[in-house]
């Protein structure tokens, strides 16, 4: 049974290599291999449902054991990784066209990313974790830059920021190694338990920077909008749905696997009964929620909009995880799952639209609901889930986070979380309206819905939004069981929601959805018995008597929230990225200037360097080595 962990870890890597080799034979061999191996990984992952395995040693390095483990929380992320990867591989077959881009190594990289993420969630020690973390960074970098010219710059930004984040983690890991000489999670936890507050804070902060870069928590988010929007359509959901969750997973492991709320509370002051460190994380997350929402509202590019929305939604995940209460952490973890589902769905659906229309500029699209009804319906479910409207899954997890914050009286964070959710209405409506509603441009009159290979993953996810919305207990089974291992009090839940007492109110999504369905049917019946309506063309439209023609471009899409933009003008002006760019440019200019002054190319100068070194040595000698 335990050997399967290693097999599961190896499966995607082997699959990647085989897909690469198979692609040389025929492309369908490549597809078959990629699908088979990602499916195998998924099956292997499902075997571990709710299992807890500690410490499968698979090697050792520098005296620290390399360990694989799994527990229900890891399984939750494992499920996200493997399921999403499987669906994305299928979608890729439909979406990525051979003649447009060379796909020699695309599937290899895709499966490598999957393998790396499987490695991260299965890691039982920090070296394994860090190793797979880095592998994930560079493999996903190659995936991002498959998107063409613009994506190269985006990928560059991504990989540089990833490296910075990773090295920040690296310092923390090295500090821990030096202290304990073992980086197995349990040992790390034991070490931290006996360390000074400064050490703990530094460790968490340095690790946190690494996770926050990946999870794109402001102000370390600047790589995400570019990378997620410029990446190829099937890669964006992988990044947004899965990859940034690794940051959340890491944060969970650090905060509750290594540290614990009690321990953190003992060594640092508390605000609203939250250790100050967690409280700061919560604020960062809340700021991400609000600011990214504002930015998402103002986007003109479908994938950029979704990318900013990802920053905002991952803010909920981090906010929930950092609450430190059972309900909040469960909500955060549940939201990680939900976000993977609905954001994956949205990116895939938008990818389907791009596949058919070739543009992701919102103001170029419109009216596609008549041409792509299935994609529309799926995307509709996705945005309802994202906006946190019952009865779909996004609502339940957000509800849990709100209740947790309310219980802790962290009202300002709660207000920000609410605002982010209302703001989500704005941008999701913008998304669906500009793509599917409004006037259909004449050039898209022959657009068809996407083929079944692309529909399948979209609809699997669409069904999952409903399933996890109405039966949140399915996810809670895993989450609550897993959280028990991390020392949380289990929360009471039912299959359909939460009874009175878990939170400040009760929730039973099945009732909400049942009544909604009944009310809908009642209204529908009334609607049907009235006289039938006649379908009119989009050009038969009220324009104060003007005759609408395609040339009129009778559509409102560009600058959809322009008037709102005027309200938040001052907020939009805050550019964290500008500050970064300023410093990078300054460093470049400085570096270039001084490097040219040092390596002048002039032999006399170079020889004088030798003299200088000898002189320094001579001075050192004269001082009798007391120079230092």
């Amino acid at each position, binding site marked *: 049974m335990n050997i399967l962990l290693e097999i599961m870890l190896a499966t995607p890597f082997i699959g990647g290599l085989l897909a690469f080799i198979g692609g040389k034979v025929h492309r369908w061999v490549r597809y078959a291999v990629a699908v088979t191996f990602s499916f195998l990984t998924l099956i292997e992952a499902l075997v571990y449902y709710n299992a807890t395995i500690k410490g499968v040693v698979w090697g050792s390095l*520098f005296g620290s054991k390399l360990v694989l483990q799994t527990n229900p929380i890891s399984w939750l992320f494992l499920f996200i990784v493997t399921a999403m990867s499987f669906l994305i591989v299928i979608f890729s077959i439909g979406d990525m066209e051979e003649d447009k881009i060379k796909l020699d190594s695309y599937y290899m990289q895709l499966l490598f990313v999957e393998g790396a993420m499987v490695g991260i969630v299965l890691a039982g020690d920090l070296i394994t974790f860090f190793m797979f973390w880095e592998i994930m960074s560079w493999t996903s970098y190659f995936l991002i*830059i498959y998107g063409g010219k613009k994506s190269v710059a985006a990928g560059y930004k991504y990989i540089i920021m990833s490296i910075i984040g990773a090295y920040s983690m690296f310092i923390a890991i*090295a*500090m821990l190694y030096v202290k304990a000489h073992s980086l197995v999670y349990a040992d790390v936890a034991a070490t931290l338990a006996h360390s000074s507050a400064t050490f703990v804070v530094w460790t968490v902060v340095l690790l946190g920077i690494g996770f926050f870069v990946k999870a794109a928590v402001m102000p370390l988010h600047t790589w995400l909008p570019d990378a997620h929007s410029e990446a190829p359509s099937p890669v964006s959901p992988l990044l947004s749905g899965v990859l940034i969750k690794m940051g959340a997973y890491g944060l969970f492991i650090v905060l509750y696997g290594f540290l614990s709320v009690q321990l953190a509370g003992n060594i640092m002051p508390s605000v609203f009964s939250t250790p100050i460190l967690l409280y700061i994380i919560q604020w960062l997350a809340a700021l991400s929620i609000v600011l990214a929402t504002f930015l998402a509202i103002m986007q003109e590019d479908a994938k950029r909009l979704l990318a900013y929305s990802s920053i905002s939604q991952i803010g909920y995940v981090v906010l929930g995880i950092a609450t430190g209460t059972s309900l909040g952490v469960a909500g955060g973890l549940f939201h990680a799952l939900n976000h993977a589902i609905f954001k994956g769905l949205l990116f895939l659906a938008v990818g389907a639209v791009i596949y058919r229309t070739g543009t992701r500029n919102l103001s170029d699209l419109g009216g596609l609901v008549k041409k792509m009804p299935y994609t529309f319906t799926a995307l509709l479910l996705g945005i309802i889930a994202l906006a946190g409207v019952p009865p779909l899954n996004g609502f339940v997890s957000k509800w849990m986070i709100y209740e947790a914050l309310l219980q802790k009286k962290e009202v300002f964070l709660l207000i920000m979380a609410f605002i982010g959710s209302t703001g989500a209405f704005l941008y999701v409506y913008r998304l669906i309206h500009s793509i599917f509603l409004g006037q259909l441009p004449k050039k898209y009159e022959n657009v068809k819905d996407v083929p079944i290979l692309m529909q399948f993953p979209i609809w699997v996810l669409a069904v999952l939004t409903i399933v996890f919305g109405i039966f949140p207990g399915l996810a809670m089974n895993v989450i609550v069981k897993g959280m028990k291992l991390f020392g949380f009090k289990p929360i009471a839940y039912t299959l359909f929601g939460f009874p009175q007492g878990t939170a400040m109110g009760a929730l039973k999504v099945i009732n909400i959805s049942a009544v909604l369905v009944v009310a809908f049917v009642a209204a529908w019946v009334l609607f049907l018995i009235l006289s039938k309506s006649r379908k009119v063309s989009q050009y038969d439209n009220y324009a104060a008597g003007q005759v609408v023609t395609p040339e009129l471009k009778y559509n409102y899409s560009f600058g959809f929230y322009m008037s709102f933009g005027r309200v938040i003008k001052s907020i939009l002006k805050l550019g964290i990225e500008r500050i970064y760019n300023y410093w990078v440019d300054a460093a*470049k200019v400085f*570096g270039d200037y001084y490097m040219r002054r*040092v390596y002048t190319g002039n032999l006399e100068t170079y020889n004088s360097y030798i003299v200088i070194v000898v002189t320094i040595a001579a001075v050192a000698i004269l001082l*009798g080595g007391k120079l230092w």
Partner: protein
Amino acid sequence: MVNIANPILLVVIPLFFTFLIALSGSFLKSGVKYLPVIAFALNLVVSLALIPEVVKNGMVIATTAGFKPPFAIDMAVDKLGLFLSIIASLLGFVASVYNLFYIDEEPQEKFHALFTLLVAGLTWMIITGDIFNLFVAFEVTSIAAFGLVGFHRDKGAIEAGFKYLVMGSIGGSFLLIGIIMLYAATGTLNIVDIAQKTSHLTFQQKLFPFAMIFTGLGIEGALFPLNAWLPDAHPAAPSSVSSILSGIMTTAAIYAIIRLTNTIFDFNQIYFFLMIFALLTLIFGEVSAFFQKDIKRMLAYSTIGQTGLFFFAFSLNTVNGLQGAFMQMVNHSLSKGMLFLVVGGMIMQVGSRNIDDFAGLGRKMKVSSFFLAIGAFSLMGLPPFFGFWSKLKIIFAALQNANAFLVASVVIILLMSVVEGAYFFKLLQVMFFGKQEKDVAVKEASYGMLFSVVVLGTVLLIISFYPSPVIDFMHKAAAEIINKNYITLALKLGGL
């Protein structure tokens, strides 16, 4: 039956072939280029044959010239020396295979003679047991390298060769002065013997020769600010030569500094001084590399940076630090050696050394680009390549007894790693995803050249995925040096 596991052969064979090439050049004509291949194949066999001996005894010492130590010319191969000489022979071998297809300029026999001499000198430097031989090897190497750098005989190459000649000669002089001083103070040239006798020397008596030797070797070992010749010389030289210069020469010189410092000039205060040099080297190397447009110049600066990195690890003066340094040396030699070979093939195809002209090569020269990527990843220290393990080790070692300065150094190292990532990824993305503007007919490098690259790449991949033997071996080597087992071993084996 001659025992081929004799370190002297490592020097004798290539030296013999050098003269053979030089003499037979006039009548063997183009056939002469096969001789270095044979020489280094033999060298490789010899160095591999040394493995069991070294593993068994910890060290192999051979004396010659009919005297007994300490007066004999003796060769001492310890664990690290063995490893480096294997790499030197390997690099020499693959580079000479590469030369078969790469060098078409005349005078061929002179090139091959100098090339063989270069590697012979470097191997000599690595395995020598006395400091005068060290000087001789240093000079042999330098002379060969001067000639090779200027081999292309265009303006840049001549200028670079001249610069190198001047600076190298100064370095050689300093080295010689240092050696004379040591000799004057101790009356012996054998390293182990000196080590035994330095205990009663005053601080100044030790430090002065050290400053001289450090300066001399530092010029060859690319330590800032003594490395100014390097960014000119490496690009100017033919790629196979750059590969040797970058892959082995700096490593060998640093190795010599490490050995001398640990055995002779063993005073703690020195390490802080060395660390400053290492960090400066690192910073200036990596930052300069970032601004380069010329790919070989970029790699040359990157060599400086890498040197700084493993010199830093060495200057930690702990077993772990030294282990990290050795691992990084191995990583650097293999990766950088391979990178220069790959790039040489690409430059041949593209006809330019400008990075922008490499756009789109990833699609046309798949194998080359693949190995270039692997080399670059390993240098950047990305998992699962060997560079990752060595960087891990170095950082772990640096924070072992962390003080504020060391923590700051670690931050600098990691920042410079980011810079390193920045320029390597820039190169990679141009290669794999750039669009070729010019209409050049580019095809994959010839099989012979690829063979060299693939051999090095495979070795790198093997030690990347099975790092533990190398890591353990390096740990023992490092422990031996730090704990001075080197001296006791040498004494036991009659090195004295």
